[in-house]
């Protein structure tokens, strides 16, 4: 029972983390109609910045804040230098250009930080477990991730749906020229949105950093998961991203934790232990296939394409 609750919380934590990535991806796609493969690179850069700044300042929180600002800056710089020229072009162009950016970022990181990878140690006040229910302990840090991501999700909702900037963002999504003609600096707005997406990816990266090692290519695997989430949730829908991210987080975590045992009940022990790793990594893709068969546009399609 303890294990199940713990794994459920892990699933929720992973799902919410994925949401941060998928939200940035879907925001950029929904508003600028831009496919950004380099989103995973921003996640990686966030983690590297955090590890560096934390070692530099000696404080985890301060390092994380600095890393967040730095990733935001990198994101905005990327938008101004490269992305801006890609709006309104073919999606294939986006794919190629951002693929080029991935190569660039991976090599830059190798050049600056070396190929070994880094680790980001947790401060002692986070590196312990807390009692969440009588008799059940859970990692304080993972709990902190859940709280932070939930707060960010709420802030994001308020920003997009309740503020003037959010209104302009949504207006820009439906008609870029018209918003520009009404005297809004749409270029700046897009730069800010792209920076926001980058910061969300960076936040996900720096929060994941203490759990995994910080290494080159760390953003690529998780980027694919973020893609799966945007497809399931419906591209351009933040609400869809949230639901799908939590769903995928649960399926992936619980699948890896319990699927091998389930399989062992049906198959022989040998067959189960060979098939389990392959099959449990397939689960989320099967889920995606089912969603596609039922609703090709995703669960919460924004309805605009």
């Amino acid at each position, binding site marked *: 029972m303890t294990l199940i609750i713990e794994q459920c919380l892990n699933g929720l934590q992973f799902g919410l983390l994925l949401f941060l990535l998928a939200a940035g991806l879907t925001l950029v796609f929904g508003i600028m109609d831009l*496919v950004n493969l380099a989103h995973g690179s921003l996640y990686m850069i966030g983690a590297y910045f955090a590890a560096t700044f934390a070692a530099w300042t000696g404080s985890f929180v301060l390092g994380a804040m600095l890393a967040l600002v730095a990733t935001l800056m990198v994101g905005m710089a990327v938008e101004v230098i490269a992305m801006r020229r890609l709006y309104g072009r073919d999606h294939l162009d986006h794919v*190629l250009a951002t693929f080029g950016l991935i190569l660039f970022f991976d090599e830059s990181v190798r050049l600056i930080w070396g190929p070994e990878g880094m680790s980001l140690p947790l401060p002692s006040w986070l590196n312990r477990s807390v009692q969440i229910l009588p008799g059940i302990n859970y990692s304080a840090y993972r709990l902190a991730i859940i709280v932070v991501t939930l707060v960010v999700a709420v802030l994001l909702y308020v920003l997009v749906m309740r503020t003037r900037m959010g209104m302009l963002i949504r207006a820009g999504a439906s008609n870029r020229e018209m918003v520009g003609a009404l005297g809004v600096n749409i270029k700046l707005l897009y730069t800010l949105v792209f920076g926001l997406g980058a910061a969300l990816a960076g936040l996900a990266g720096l929060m994941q950093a203490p759990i995994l090692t910080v290494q080159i290519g760390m953003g690529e695997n998780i980027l694919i998961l973020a*893609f799966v989430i945007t497809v399931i949730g419906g591209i351009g829908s933040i609400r869809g991203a949230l639901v799908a991210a939590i769903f995928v987080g649960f399926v992936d975590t619980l699948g890896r934790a319990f699927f091998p045992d389930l399989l062992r009940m049906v198959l022989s022990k040998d067959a189960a232990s060979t098939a389990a790793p*392959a099959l449990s990594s397939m689960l989320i893709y099967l889920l995606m296939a089912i969603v596609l068969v039922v609703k090709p546009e995703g669960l919460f399609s924004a309805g605009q394409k």
Partner: protein
Amino acid sequence: MTGWLSVRNIVIVALLAALVLLPVYVELGGNRFLLTLFTRIVILALAAGSLNLILGYGGMMSFGHAAYIGIGGYAVGILAHEGIFSGFVQWPVALAASALFAAVIGALSLRTRGVYFIMITLAFAQMAYYIIAGLARYGGDDGLTIYKRSQFVAPIDLSNKVQFYYVCLALLYGSIYLIWRLVNSRFGLVIQGVRSNDVRMRAIGFPTYRYKLACFVIAGTLCGLAGALLANHTDFVSPGIMYWTRSGDLIIMVVLGGMASPFGPLFGAVALLLFEEMLPFVIKLVGTPFFGEAAARASEYWQIIMGPLLLLVVLFARRGIDGLLAKVGAKVRAKVRT
């Protein structure tokens, strides 16, 4: 001047002839490494050509094309591991497995279009990657060594490097011809019609989904053949050959060479792989007089140049090498006329 004698055709004929004559040059004392490199280029050109069929002619932006290289390669690798070396078994199985995978993936992915299609093909290819990386019996992450190349009847011996090169080259030229015939057939015209306007094609009565699926399966099967060749070439298969960046490389080859052009993928494969091989040397050569040791170190990081270069190609040379040749040809013709 006749229509045939254009700059583009001269370059094409020169390239095709050079590829045929390459082993002769190597035998006459050229660098043996060239043969290995060009076998690889030829195989990847075959894979890129199959991608061009769906990406260039069909307008289907598949980002999971490397999966078939992996499936074709692993079909050969797994059969060899189980003691079946006959190429008459291995290759048909490789083709059939790729075709089957393409049929399943295509049937699901083609229900969507645009960005969804890109992301879904990518995700499914990654799924195949994880499945194969999870096969502990066949090496898992570490890959699988192939101790014996595919066996065919007597005169054909794939472990002879020159023979193997010519087999690959023959298959490449055959595939270019096949694709050329295919896209100019009624089937190919429907596929190209779908690229420009799917809705209209449906309105005049073509079941476009079936046409696209058939095209998708043909491309996947051809790429599976490239996978079987690649496994024989390296005597080794690992999940790395089907990692998603490999799909990205294939797309780069197609776009760099020129989409929807019969020889484009060949141009692209030659250009990209030669570039990859040469860039570190060029950086070292040009940089050393100015920066000394630093240039040698910088040459390890050549991808830092590759990335932005790709961006520039996308921004400024959208029609690729094929388009460039056509442009040069037009200029030359204008000059000749005046």
